[in-house]
């Protein structure tokens, strides 16, 4: 055995105690759902993990009513400092149960434990800490004195960062005095339900946060509910578009974090080894299930071959497999449906004449898997250069001049994020100015922080999460909206 065949180093599953079935979390209690229950699985093995309730329209109505009651009677009347203390409590409880949450996240989502352990869960705690401190300082949120919360927030989150997206949604909503009905993604409900237990441990007043599980219909019921004042959605542009239509003509405020097709621009003076790491991190972390993933690599033509060669060498050291193994770099694709979409688009890429390459890589028999793949010879007109693949697939294109790099980077209906790699400060800043994207990482990629606003231009959505801007998204000036 060679040294590089690291022996299995699995994180223990025993730290997570899953119930056989989970109900809806409404008004501080787990209750049965009226819809048909469904089984949630581990995408790495397809093994069943638990039975999950489906909230029908009446369940959603109950959850909204509970949130409204909690808003009117408790949460909107509570002092900011007390709201903040609840959020601090939640942050601490997340830290205390960090390992358990990380394991549950990797089990249900398929992401490597090193990511759930080192990225997702620490950021979840950080998000609650950050917004906890805002709760009694809303006068400084930039909306003038004494801004008002909006009321009941309906929040719908995706499956790629289940618990982190929950934190992005719930923390600012509660800090600013709103109450919440949150719908986790159909395929990844478990950590939200564990989070409900944390809320019970934190003694959060009943109804302040309600969690309704289910599929698209549950989300639609929430979006259309007349007593919801705010919708915050993270997910696909297609669904975001439907939500924007459904809320048209209402006074519902809307925050949409949608798809992306980020350009990661590598100039010929880039710190090359760090750029390679950034490319890998940009598209292969979390199996590429990242809305801001650097899925379009734009390389200056004179270093294209060198970058591709280095990238290939680096990819051979990636380890794909058991998400709970601490040495796994690439975990499982979250669902059969997503795997089918990745396969369809990569097949289209090949059909359009681009050249795929993957490192030697044994895919497990059970579960949903896709080898990390890079495409060279991609043209701007290729589907794999236009459409969001949401998988571990990188499309490599070239450019000749900074102007061309900016033009190609912006040539997409999306505008969520971008990356720039160069040693030349003045050019970096000028290129950053020219990019139509909400987050620009220069000489780094896929960094997140609760103090840093995140969100898109164009069809990547609107509104920001994180920072003061993320707080303001849940507030209205005291003079009216």
């Amino acid at each position, binding site marked *: *055995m060679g*040294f590089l065949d690291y*022996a299995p*180093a699995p994180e223990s599953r025993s730290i997570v105690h899953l119930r056989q079935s989970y109900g809806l979390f409404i008004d501080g209690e787990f209750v049965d759902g009226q819809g048909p229950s469904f089984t949630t699985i581990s995408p790495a093995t397809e093994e069943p993990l638990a039975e999950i309730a489906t909230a029908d329209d009446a369940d959603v109505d109950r959850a909204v009513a509970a949130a409204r009651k909690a808003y009117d009677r408790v949460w909107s009347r509570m002092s900011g400092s007390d709201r903040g203390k609840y959020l601090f409590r939640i942050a601490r409880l997340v830290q205390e149960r960090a390992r358990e949450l990380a394991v549950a996240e990797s089990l249900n989502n398929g992401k490597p434990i090193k990511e759930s352990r080192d990225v997702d869960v620490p950021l979840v705690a950080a998000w609650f800490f950050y917004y906890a401190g805002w709760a009694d300082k809303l006068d400084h949120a930039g909306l003038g004195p004494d801004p008002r919360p909006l009321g009941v927030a309906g929040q719908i989150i995706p499956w790629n960062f289940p618990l982190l997206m929950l934190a992005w949604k719930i923390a600012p909503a509660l800090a600013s005095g709103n109450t919440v009905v949150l719908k986790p993604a159909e395929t990844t409900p478990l950590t939200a339900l564990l989070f409900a237990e944390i809320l019970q441990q934190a003694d959060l007043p009943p109804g302040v946060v309600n969690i309704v599980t289910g599929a698209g219909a549950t989300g639609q019921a929430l979006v259309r509910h007349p007593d919801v004042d705010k919708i915050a959605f993270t997910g696909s542009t297609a669904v975001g578009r439907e939500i924007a239509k459904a809320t048209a003509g209402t006074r519902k405020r809307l925050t949409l974090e949608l798809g992306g097709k980020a350009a990661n621009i590598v100039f010929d003076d880039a*710190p090359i080894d760090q750029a390679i790491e950034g490319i890998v991190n940009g598209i292969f972390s979390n199996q590429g299930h990242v809305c801001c993933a650097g899925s379009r690599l734009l390389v200056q033509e004179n270093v294209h071959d060198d970058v591709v060669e280095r990238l290939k060498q680096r990819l051979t050291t990636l380890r794909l497999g058991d998400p709970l193994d601490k040495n796994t770099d690439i975990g499982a694709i979250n669902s059969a449906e997503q795997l089918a979409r990745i396969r369809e688009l990569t097949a289209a890429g090949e059909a359009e004449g681009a050249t795929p390459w993957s490192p030697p890589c044994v895919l497990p028999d059970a579960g949903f898997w896709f080898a990390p793949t890079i495409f060279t010879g991609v043209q701007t007109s290729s589907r794999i250069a236009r459409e969001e693949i949401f998988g571990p697939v990188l499309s490599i294109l070239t450019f000749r001049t900074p102007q061309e790099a900016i033009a190609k980077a912006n040539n997409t209906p999306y505008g969520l994020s971008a990356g720039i790699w160069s040693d030349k400060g003045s050019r970096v800043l000028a290129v950053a100015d020219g990019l139509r994207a909400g987050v620009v990482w220069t000489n780094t990629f896929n960094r997140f922080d609760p103090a840093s606003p995140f969100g898109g231009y164009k069809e990547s959505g609107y509104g920001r999460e994180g920072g003061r801007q993320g707080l303001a998204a849940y507030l209205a000036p005291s003079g009216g909206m």
Partner: protein
Amino acid sequence: MSTQSEPLLASGIAHRPGHATDGGALELLDGPLTDRTLRRYLEGIPGVDAVGLEQRAAGLGTRSIKTSSKALALDRVIRLIDLTTLEGADTPGKVRSLVAKAITPDPSDPTCPRLAAVCVYGDLAEVAVEALGTFHAPVARAAGQQGIAVAAVATAFPSGRASLAVKLADVEYAVAAGADEIDMVIDRGAFLSGRYLQVFDEIRAVKEACRRPNGEDAHLKVILEVGELVTYDNARRASWLAVLAGADFIKTSTGKVASNATLPMTLLMLEVVRDWYRLTGEKVGVKPAGGIRTSKDAIKNLVTVAETAGEEWLQPSLFRIGASSLLNDVLLQRQKARTGHYSGADYVTID
């Protein structure tokens, strides 16, 4: 230099003939060898982003090496150690003790591998050679065994502040005393003031001084003293400079300044030798020295080597760890693996 087919020399260090004089590597410079061409080349190398480098190193540091992999790693670490004593108070007795430890690291376990080398000041090289006896690498090799090399620091170690004549005399003395490897220091003052050619020429001169009358060479490790070069950009340029000048190994540090072999520095130097191999097919070794005190740190280094330059670098001819206290921590870990319980300081020897 060693292409893979070339036999390893006695010390286990692959020997690179003075290719630079042949002009092969200097084709990279695109011009005659002058301060100006060297500067243009070295300063034209893309910069290093410190944050990204350190993050990559930290990421490599999170690899979880368990069970059979850990056992393999611990033995590998022992085989890669240059057991080192470099004190003003070093005596023949201290060196003999060090040598005994290198031969028999763990008296309670005959399966424990031997170390790669002992590293001493030049004036004590002869003592080390004598003490090693049949275990000395050239002798052992003649008998078909893997031996232990004697490495001597030279060139007015650690500061390097002496005339070239004195530095070369220092090297010649150690080589004559039987040192198999010379760990030289570069002139950091010359490097920091931009006199790259002077550093280059000095390395070349030392390499010449490493020749024995019989035509063999002591192998040359070039210490960059990255703690005094401070920046990653400097360390990268110095690495390239040393490799261009014909270093068999590039080594991080003397162990005598505040900052020694950090994992990001080792990673950076491994990236240079990997890139050199891509360019020329020649393999140059890397030696982090100073500051690696625990098995955990040593294993992080192994991971970094294997995932950067490749697993073939994990052999004494291409990777060494300069250390003193590291060995006992590795031995304690081995004992724990063997017995199933934690061991204690009284169950390993002091040297």
